[in-house]
């Protein structure tokens, strides 16, 4: 598009205020969504992108009200279809920074098909998945990420369904970027969202978000002060996978499986602990990391996978350039008078 090519030479310094919208934020007090909004408002001004070049697209759900609360171009779409709408925006104008906001129901139930396909195509879209493990807006039915056995409005005896693990789904769909954070750690949220924005390709950030009304404390084991140190593994590129209050526990690979070890026990030293490599194309370890969950394991937070691969829109743009160079057809007039023509 011509519009965005007329780039102002230097992008003016932006601040959080540039992205705050004039609309009243209507999430419940204490909802995890507030913290996510605040983190996004911090990330956007730092990206070196004109404020007119952001487009925020969502589906339907509490989380999907998000575009109204950010002063950018935005579309509040229909349930489950944000990935498809965002794909159209990005393909139509690859210069734009496209953000998709979605919930666990929006993304993994009704929108599951679009989600796996956008990930597979590796369009450069940043997907922020608000995972409260419940349908918030429709008042508390179970979702595809609700833990098995959980009692909800539609599972009074507990669900029978095995939940999706978003990370596994992303990796299974050939995803190039997956990260996980909690809504209770704003610093990590900002860092990870920043990395997601910089990743060229589809980045999926799963945010473990608390719904105070319908799934309150669902992530408590991971996020509460008392238990979080033992249940969170903060991944850092090139760093050993250590966790625990004393950083004395680690993850090792034994045979084909991950295992939790304690440093000092059985002559285990830091050297035995796995080093995180988010850039490894082989999805094996990334998948195992994404699957880790308490009580056996800590949950992996931070960037689990970030690999380079051509994006859909790059390939599309290249093929347009090639076609323009080699095609003898320079106008639609050329086209319609090509081939078998006769004159009277």
């Amino acid at each position, binding site marked *: 598009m011509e519009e965005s090519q007329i780039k102002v030479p230097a992008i003016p310094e932006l601040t959080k205020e540039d992205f705050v919208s004039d609309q009243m934020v209507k999430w419940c007090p204490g909802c995890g969504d507030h913290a996510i909004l605040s983190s996004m408002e911090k990330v956007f001004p730092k990206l070196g992108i004109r404020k007119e070049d952001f487009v925020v697209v969502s589906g339907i759900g509490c989380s999907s009200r998000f575009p*109204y609360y950010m002063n950018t171009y935005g579309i509040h779409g*229909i349930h489950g279809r944000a990935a498809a709408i965002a794909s159209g925006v990005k393909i139509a104008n690859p210069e734009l920074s496209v953000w998709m906001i979605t919930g666990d129901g929006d993304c993994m139930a009704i929108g599951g098909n*679009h989600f796996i396909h956008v990930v597979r195509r590796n369009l450069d879209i940043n997907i922020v998945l608000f995972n409260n493990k419940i349908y918030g807006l429709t008042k508390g039915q179970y979702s595809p990420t609700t833990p098995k056995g959980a009692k909800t409005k539609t599972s009074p005896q507990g669900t029978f369904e095995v939940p999706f693990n978003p990370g596994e789904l992303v990796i299974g769909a050939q995803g190039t970027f997956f990260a996980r954070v909690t809504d209770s750690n704003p610093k990590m949220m900002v860092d990870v969202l920043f990395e997601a924005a910089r990743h060229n390709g589809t980045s999926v950030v799963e945010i473990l978000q608390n719904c105070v009304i319908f799934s309150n404390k669902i992530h408590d084991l991971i996020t509460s002060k008392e238990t979080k140190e033992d249940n969170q593994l903060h991944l850092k590129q090139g760093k050993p996978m250590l966790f625990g209050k004393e950083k004395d526990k680690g993850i090792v690979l034994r045979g084909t499986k991950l295992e939790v070890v304690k440093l000092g026990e059985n002559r285990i030293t830091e050297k035995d602990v796995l080093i995180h490599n988010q850039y490894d194309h082989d999805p094996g370890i990334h998948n195992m990391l994404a699957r880790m969950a308490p009580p056996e394991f800590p949950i992996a937070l931070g960037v689990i996978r970030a690999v380079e691969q051509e994006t859909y829109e790059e390939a599309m743009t290249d093929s347009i350039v090639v076609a*323009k160079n080699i095609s003898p057809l320079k106008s639609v007039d050329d086209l319609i008078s090509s081939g078998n023509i006769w004159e009277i």
Partner: protein
Amino acid sequence: MTHKKNHVVELDDVVVRFAGDSGDGMQLTGSLFSDSVAFAGNDFATFPDYPSEIRAPQGTIAGVSGFQVHFGHNNIHTSGDLADVLVAMNPASLRASLKWAEKDAILIVDSDAFIEKGIIKAGYDTNPLEDNSLVGYNLIKAPISRLTKEAVKDLGIELKTALRCKNMFALGIVLYLFNRKLDSANAFFEEKFKSNPLIVESNKRVLKAGFIFAENVEAINSTFRVQPAKLKKGKYRNITGNRATAWGFLAASERSGRELFLGSYPITPASEILQELTKHKQFSVKAFQAEDEIAGICSSLGASFTGSLAVTSTSGPGLSLKSEAIGLAVMTELPIVIVDVQRGGPSTGMPTKSEQSDLFQALFGRNGECPTIVLAAISSSDCFYSAYEASKLALEHMTPVILLSDGALANGSEVFKIPKVADLPEINPPIVEPNDPDFKPYRRDENKLSRYWAIPGTEGLRHRIGGLEKENITGNVSNDPLNHQLMVKLRDDKVKRVANYIPKQKIIGKNSGELLVVSWGGTYGVMLTAIERMQEEGRDISLAHFKYINPLPKNTKEIFSKFKKIIVCELNNGQFVSYLKMNFPEFKYEQYNKIQGLPFMVSELKEKFSSLLNE
């Protein structure tokens, strides 16, 4: 080649039908014949009639694939009722197609295929070539398989490959019959099989063998000539409806300066629109094969928000899947064209058969008060202009437009007079300039009531839109009761006002009289032919054929008021007539409906109209 037979019969128009097994290449044979007809300067129209299975069991009725060509030196508007010449490559195709042939038609059959096995498979008790059941027809028994093998025997190709050329033998016979040259078919072989000279040679030889056979066989004692058509000066080509649709969008993209984005999922009979547009990246077309129809339209809507000429193409079942997103397009007031190439329904229905079955779905198939513009293309070549106009209306009025085509238009082809893109009407979308201080997401153009298009990337115009009801002008989310009523009325009025920007309805024939025939969309050719013939016979009959369905042209009511009787003809169970009753309940409507997956025939229309006029 000189013709041995000196008896040449002059004809006004002829219908030739090629029928064979799905694997016999009848579609190719038919289109090669229409190319030769085009080169000879005739006007023509074609109609492919094929099963939905790619290769149904060989030799069965279910596997019969047909291709009909109607050509002549007068204006040809239809692919013809009954065939004057029927080519049948096996017993099943003879049995399936004989009902589509005139009682004295020339039948060209591959006599080698009429062996016991084939005859039984086709469901005959006895060999129809020998049991006198074909008395009255001019039967040409040609040993096509045997002579095909003979023609290529010294080329050293496999028997199976050789027999694949037998359709060209049949083509050779038909070309001889109509005093046509072999050049255009030969040129096609050379181009198509460039990399395989042996295949080029075998096709050429078999074609020629058929031609020579016809020259020598006694059963053909005269040949036919159809004079070139009296077409207006200009350049012409053959075009199918689906290709014309795709090219109409390309022209609209060029003329409006908006990049073309197509989000689509393959479905018969609409897939060729997607296939065609993937070929034209040189015009910056972004053709996106989505994971389903919902993603097709949603990606298009995203592209529309981003400033593209956005299109999505599908057929009936796919339109069902798109309903919710069309609602979003109505609510966000974004331009988008939804093409529905209709087929027999409901559900999967009859995928390869044509029907005008989705009119109700196009008009009403959504939740809420959800009006869109609805247009219906009226011929294969009109698909070009309809796609262009649908784009223009969507872009200038900022609203979704549903364009109805159908299987017969999509796959059928006809002569297309090549226009100049610069001669097409201008397209001026209401794009907002950067930093326009007056911009508000739902401020509207006073006349059209369209809102303005503020494209991401433009400075000073950041805004949010979406499926929740919006406050008038500001576009903020609103649940205010009076605002909702106002917005529903505004969206409705916006579409109604399109009537001020479309042409008035034309009448073919007198503006008043005994009988007004009303029809819409893809049946134009056959309606026109029937009406013109009856007018020539001096009957008091006129035709109003509708292309603009919603809104209807402003003069519709006035037209209806001038006739004693109105009959509405459509290939469905009466959808347009119900719509007319809803809009103009003051008139009485007769109706004529055919729901067989087949086009109208001129003869049945004439019969119906005559009986009405005689009442």
